[in-house]
């Protein structure tokens, strides 16, 4: 397969599908076992210094924020991260625990550029940055999910986003056209927040699925947090609602309001003041540090976090939720 052009970015994770198959054969049980555990236990067991990690969907939408905060709390460091993110990766960047980024977008959406990203990358604290598009990184997960080492796409071509990626350009042997080949992206650990899961890890999501299906299938270890734990009978009544089957899952964490300060479709809306608080705080290193101290380090767990947010405020978020009218 003659390569016309190669991106100069480093290929951080090698798309070794044979090793991935072997991992899935030997390290992932087909047994229906109770995987319910706390954030503390899940992160302690499956997340480690230097691991390659990804989160889904992103900071303000169906994001495993209770897991994200626990990663910081446990002092895990040198993370290599698949970077589509808002608040979640921002917190990690501010905490100084990110070493390498396969980046697509890290920013504060309507609130603009991320100060935490700027500080971490411009200072060189983040040592490597490899560029991709949002579609690109999702297709990389999809390649891994399909069990193939790459996928062809017609995006990223002609741009510096390609040049600073680890993609390659080849000629299609059927049509002669140029296509970009994206290497499969296998995660050491994936963190995904869902609406409902049973104790074994069978998961249901409402609303858009973002890249949850692809990322779940691309992860060597998968930690699920869920708004609600349902009996397996409920899963078996609606097998067509299962988007992540149990055998992909290593840990199930019951995390009501797990996406806070982000939203959860049909459950609660985003907490605008809290999001703005981070936007403001993160403008300076000191502000970010104070925020992390107050909202992460000084709280023992997600229950304490929710208590600090307060029932009244959470009720208001539930009130403001999207409804199926």
């Amino acid at each position, binding site marked *: 397969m003659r390569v016309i052009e190669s991106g100069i970015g480093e290929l951080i994770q090698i798309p070794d599908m044979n090793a991935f198959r072997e991992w899935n054969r030997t390290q992932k049980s087909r047994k229906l076992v109770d995987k319910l555990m706390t954030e503390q236990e899940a992160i302690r067991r499956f997340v480690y210094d230097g691991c390659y990690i990804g989160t889904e969907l992103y900071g303000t939408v169906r994001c495993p924020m209770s897991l994200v905060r626990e990663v910081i709390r446990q002092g895990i460091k040198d993370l290599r991260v698949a970077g589509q993110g808002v608040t979640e990766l921002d917190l990690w960047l501010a905490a100084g625990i990110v070493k390498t980024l396969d980046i697509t977008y890290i*920013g504060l959406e*309507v609130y603009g550029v991320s100060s935490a990203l700027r500080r971490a990358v411009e200072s060189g604290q983040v040592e490597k*940055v490899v560029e991709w598009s949002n*579609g690109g990184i999702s*297709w990389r997960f999809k390649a891994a999910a399909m069990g193939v080492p790459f996928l062809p796409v017609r995006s990223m071509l002609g741009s510096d986003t390609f040049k*600073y990626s680890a993609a390659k350009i080849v000629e299609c042997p059927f049509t002669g056209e140029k296509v970009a080949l994206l290497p499969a992206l296998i995660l050491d650990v994936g963190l995904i927040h869902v609406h409902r899961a049973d104790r074994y890890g069978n998961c249901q999501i409402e609303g858009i699925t973002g890249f949850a299906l692809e990322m779940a299938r691309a992860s060597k270890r998968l930690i699920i947090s869920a708004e609600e734990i349902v009996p397996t009978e409920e899963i078996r009544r609606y097998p067509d609602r299962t988007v992540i089957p149990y055998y992909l899952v290593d840990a199930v964490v019951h995390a009501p309001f797990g996406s806070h300060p982000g939203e959860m479709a049909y459950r609660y809306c985003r907490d605008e003041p809290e999001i703005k608080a981070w936007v403001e705080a993160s403008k300076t290193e000191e502000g970010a540090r104070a925020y992390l101290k107050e909202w992460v380090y000084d709280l023992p767990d997600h229950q304490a976090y929710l208590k600090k947010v307060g029932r009244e405020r959470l009720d208001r978020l539930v009130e403001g939720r999207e409804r199926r009218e």
Partner: protein
Amino acid sequence: MSEERYNPTELLICTASRLMEDEVTAFIGTGIPMLAAALAQRRQAPNLIPIFEFGGTGAILEDLPMAVGEARTFHKGLAASGICDIMETAARGFIDYGFLGGAQIDPYGNLNSTIIGPRHHPPKVRLPGSGGANDVGSLCWRTIIIIRHSRRTFVPKVDFITTPGYLTGPGAREEAGLPPGTGPLYVVSTLALLGFDEESKRMKLLKTQPGVTVDQVVAETGFELIIPSQIETNEPPSDEELRILREEVDRQRLYI
């Protein structure tokens, strides 16, 4: 520009909104495109089909989303799927328009939202990165760029091509392997509405914004624009547009 009647954001929104046709599919990003689409759905384009990259298709934009994955992006929508489905829908040629922004734009409509400065890493200034922009700019039929106008944003050469415009000129997109028939159509700026010359693919002034002279546009543009002999002026935002924008679209003044 009448400081009293509307602000630059409102001007950008109204100008972009008028470009949105009825019964087309349009990729909508966070911010101004959302407001423009919501305004258009209430005026000339009630059946504009907004497409949001993380899965929302055909939402009715009753409340403004603050993020491209929020539930409001599929509020009363026709479908709520995922990012691969949406990007692949674009790859198959089903998305007519895409709206894009950026920190820098060059004469060929190439956009930069990745870094400022000559070095990729560590960079002088790190911006968010492509997000879905590169995919939108690669795969949608036509893109419409919304950007504030200054010599800092309209530059001869972008520091980084995050999202391809016409790259180096005629035929360059096709040569790179991008689908034919695609590329930027308009640039909506705070000073003008611009397009691209059919032949050279270079940026061309189409209309000035109300109260803006051609000289002002030229002065604020860091490269040579193609300037036709006759230049009309854009209609300013109407009272009706502003009323809808302020009272219906962005009741809570989150953006404007």
